[in-house]
């Protein structure tokens, strides 16, 4: 899975470049997230602007990443389309993650 990453002063911004985070790609996604966390990136923003489908394996990978960060930092999400948001609402995971409409809004809020 291709994931672009960009470091700011306070954040690592990761942007999956593929449309789906599913059972086929979730293991790779989770592995890359763990690598970034182990490198000391504890405040990570996942920009879902390119993603139009996430299944339960993808949700599990995102939850697992948050657990790996633990109390050292936080995991943020942005640019979530309505179909994916409906899954977060159904599973109540929308109450777990801090979510932003866009990357710019997230960076602005998290950099202040």
């Amino acid at each position, binding site marked *: 899975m291709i994931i672009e990453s960009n470091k700011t002063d306070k954040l690592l911004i990761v942007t999956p470049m593929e449309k789906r985070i599913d059972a086929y790609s979730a293991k790779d996604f989770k592995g890359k997230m763990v690598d970034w966390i182990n490198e000391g990136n504890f405040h990570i923003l996942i920009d879902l602007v390119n993603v*139009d489908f996430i299944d339960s394996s993808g949700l599990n990978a995102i939850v697992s990443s948050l657990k790996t960060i633990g109390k050292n930092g936080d995991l943020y999400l942005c640019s979530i389309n309505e179909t994916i948001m409906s899954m977060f609402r159904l*599973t109540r995971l929308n109450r777990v993650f801090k979510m932003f409409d866009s990357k710019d809004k997230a960076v602005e809020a998290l950099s202040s």
Partner: protein
Amino acid sequence: MIIPKTIKLTIDSYLENVFWIGLAVRSFCSYFYFNEVESCQIELSVVEAVTNSIKHAYQMQPMGKVDVIVSIDDRSIIFDICDKGKTMMTFEKATLEFDPQDIESLPEGGMGLYIIQNTMDEVIYKQINGMNILTLIKYLKKI
């Protein structure tokens, strides 16, 4: 236009093939007047079911086949997900209990069946002649 009442999609039991089933299901749903969110939710349910067949029934072994039989009638669209792998031991109402403030309580599994049961109108599991069949039914919207 007269359309066929049933179509069967078959994939080999590789996770990378599930994507094709998802694409087809989303297209069927859009054609039958489900909106984008509903179509994606139905796609997700079928994808979860097919993924379960590959992961749990075939235990990731690639020699199996998964059939998805799509049927349409006056009131519903029906997906029969069929495999000949290991039988599901239990099929009960899935729950998803956690405290959103406590990250250690967050689930890292078991969401698939919960999503299916809370998205589709009817979910039925049965075994017939060595075939595991998970039937997912979504009622058509009246227009």
